[in-house]
């Protein structure tokens, strides 16, 4: 055996809900590299772990799965990696099987299946504290003897057992050639073997009524349950608006200050215009929304990690079944409220292909956080900031309404799709409902940090580029002396806007909107920066310093503003979403279909809104 040149790879494998990601976060901290597996969009998370003997290993967090017979694309990644058949991915040198100590019987079955791979292996008996609290005592030494591998009790959230785990890992990584893998075993046989082992090593079981069951008595209550779900979603969206208000104002002040400073420091000319109108005006208009996006992700992460999200899926299954979907689809759809891209990627947990395709197609109808900037600015400009019935803010209420319209549109679209292009047998619903847990601040923190990084990364790349490109198109060519119109009208962008205007005039859009829709294709929130850039360039000196909200208020009619909102409920305008759809569906046919049907829906909705609002 050659001396290994690369750090050994250790894979964390386990059932979903075994606390695998918490353990991964506890072991690697924030020194994580998040990427994708080659060819698929499954997220690959890797981090460094130092062993007590001074070596360091690359720890990889594999997608959670119940067995090595994958039902969905992300489970297939786990199988391929541990079998050594994943393209561009080294086979792990050792496996850490993460097991939920409170659910030993079922998780042991997977350990037995993994053991047959022949790789050096140890078991992390996670959530050992919860098992103790439940009155479950596990004979760890005996379990290790029976399995023939080290068993380390861990409590990932309290960082307990981590050193012992690293110490137990070291002797497994001595470069020995693993024995060949045994064949696939019958699942029933493994299941029974696991039950026998579990009943041998579980010493005593108390009969404490579990918290989960009590909480489910409320969360799944026939009457209280749905009301609670509606209330939670409502609080989430009110929170997004009210909690973000102050930090957003600080960011906006910061951008204004920078603009003023740049205006003062630079001589009048193209460079100053690029910096003030293009970069700061455009990117600044988007960065301001970071607090709202983080607050929304915070709520989603808390709901996910607490275990409530699967209850929501359970409650929603009946409704989802009506439109030919599965309660499981509710989770990717909720994620799509943050962004359709992780939402579409999360559909990989849906086994049935047609079910999955339908969910992908309707995911963009869930109002993603990139639309928040668009909604927020129009709402701020046109909806009075007063309260309804004393407690509810009218602006928040309108925002909530837009989300509801998106959801209804999605259900309608799913129903239509399931009866036409994705026609097929009704999928079933079968899903583990994990126990409730306090969300771990560290896990939430790491999740938010990764989201913020991704958002600012987008702002610094795609949004910056498209804003600067738009600024250039809107600045040149300069009109000749004595030209009657504004310089914007004379520019390339102005001409594109003028060309597009007839298409959008019937639904109440002016030339500036038609113009903003073009760069808005890159990313939805760019529409805001585009409007900011367009209005900032065409303004007189006095208007120049006016915030975008004021500019919109003076240049749009109310029906136009409402039509614009309606357009954005359905608008297919996000290249990234179309790209990820192409990757997930394996061709351009479905993204093209998605674009066409969403465009049609957006056009009709905006038109109806415009004409209805005009009549009233």
């Amino acid at each position, binding site marked *: 055996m050659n001396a290994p040149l690369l750090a050994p790879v250790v894979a964390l494998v386990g059932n979903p809900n075994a606390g695998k990601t918490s353990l991964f976060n506890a072991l690697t901290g924030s020194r994580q590299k998040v990427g994708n597996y080659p060819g698929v969009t499954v997220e690959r998370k890797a981090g460094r772990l130092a062993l007590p003997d001074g070596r360091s290993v690359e720890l990889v967090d594999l997608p959670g799965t*119940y*067995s090595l*017979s994958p*039902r969905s694309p992300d489970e297939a990644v786990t199988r391929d990696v541990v079998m050594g058949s994943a393209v561009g991915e080294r086979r792990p040198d050792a496996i850490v099987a993460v097991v939920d100590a*409170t*659910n*030993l*019987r*079922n998780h042991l*079955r997977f350990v037995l299946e993994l053991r047959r791979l022949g790789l050096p292996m140890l078991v992390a008996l996670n959530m050992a504290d919860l098992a103790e609290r439940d009155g479950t005592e596990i004979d760890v030494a005996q379990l290790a003897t029976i399995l023939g591998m080290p068993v380390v009790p861990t409590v990932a959230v309290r960082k307990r057992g981590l050193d012992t785990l690293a110490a137990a890992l070291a002797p497994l990584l001595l470069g020995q050639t693993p024995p060949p893998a045994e064949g696939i075993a019958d*699942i*029933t046989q493994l*299941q*029974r073997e696991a*039950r026998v082992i579990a009943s041998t090593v579980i010493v005593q079981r108390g009969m404490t*009524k579990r918290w*989960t*069951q009590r909480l*489910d*008595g409320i969360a*799944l*209550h*026939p*009457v209280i*349950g*749905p009301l609670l779900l509606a209330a939670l979603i409502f609080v989430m969206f009110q929170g997004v608006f009210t909690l973000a208000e102050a930090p957003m104002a600080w960011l906006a002040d910061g951008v204004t200050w920078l603009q003023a400073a740049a205006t003062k420091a630079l001589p009048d000319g193209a460079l100053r215009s690029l910096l003030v109108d293009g970069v700061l005006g455009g990117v600044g208009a988007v960065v301001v929304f970071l607090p709202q996006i983080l607050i929304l992700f915070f709520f989603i992460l808390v709901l996910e990690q607490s275990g409530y999200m*699967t209850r929501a*899926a*359970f*409650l929603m*299954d*009946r409704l989802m*079944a009506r439109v030919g979907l599965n*309660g499981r689809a509710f989770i990717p759809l909720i994620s799509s409220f943050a962004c359709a891209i992780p939402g579409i990627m999360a559909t990989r947990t849906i*086994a049935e292909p047609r079910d999955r395709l339908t969910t992908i197609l309707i995911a963009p109808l869930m109002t993603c956080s990139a639309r928040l900037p668009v909604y927020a600015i129009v709402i701020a400009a046109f909806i009075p900031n007063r309260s309804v019935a004393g407690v509810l803010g009218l602006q928040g209420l309108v925002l909530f309404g837009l989300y509801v319209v998106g959801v209804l549109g999605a259900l309608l679209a799913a129903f239509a799709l399931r009866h036409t292009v994705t026609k097929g047998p009704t999928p*079933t*619903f*079968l*899903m*583990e*409902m*994990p*126990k409730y847990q306090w969300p771990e601040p560290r896990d939430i923190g790491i999740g938010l940090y990764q989201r913020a990084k991704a958002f600012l990364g987008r702002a610094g790349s795609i949004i910056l580029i498209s804003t600067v490109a738009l600024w250039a198109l809107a600045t040149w060519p300069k009109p000749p002396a004595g030209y009657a119109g504004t310089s914007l009208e004379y520019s390339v962008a102005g001409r594109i806007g003028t060309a597009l205007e007839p298409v959008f005039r019937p639904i109440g859009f002016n030339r500036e909107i038609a113009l903003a829709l073009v760069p808005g294709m890159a990313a939805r929130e760019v529409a805001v920066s585009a409007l900011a850039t367009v209005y900032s360039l065409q303004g007189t000196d006095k208007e120049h310093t006016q915030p975008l909200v004021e500019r919109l208020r003076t240049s749009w009619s109310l029906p136009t503003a409402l039509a614009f909102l309606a357009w954005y409920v359905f608008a297919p305008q996000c290249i990234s979403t179309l790209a990820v759809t192409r990757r997930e569906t394996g061709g351009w046919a479905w993204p093209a279909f998605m674009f066409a049907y969403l465009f049609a829906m957006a056009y009709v909705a905006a038109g109806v809104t415009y004409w209805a609002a005009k009549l009233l």
Partner: protein
Amino acid sequence: MTSSIHAMRPGDVATIVAIDRDGCDPVTARQLHEMGFDEGVDIELLHRAPFGGDPMALRVGNMVVGLRKALAAMIVVEPARAAAE
């Protein structure tokens, strides 16, 4: 004395005596095993969803699993005892 999960009420405990593996596709049958369903395992009906009681939540061993009525119909049970608490 066997019956189906349909007849159970929340709080009832029963033992699985048979799973109709031919009544569903092999993938679904396997999935049931992955969730811990097997002959001889105790289950408890915990909750039924609003609007028609479909899907339902069952305790299987130490795990809570949500599933639709149609799938639950594949599982034949023998009532063990009424819930003590």
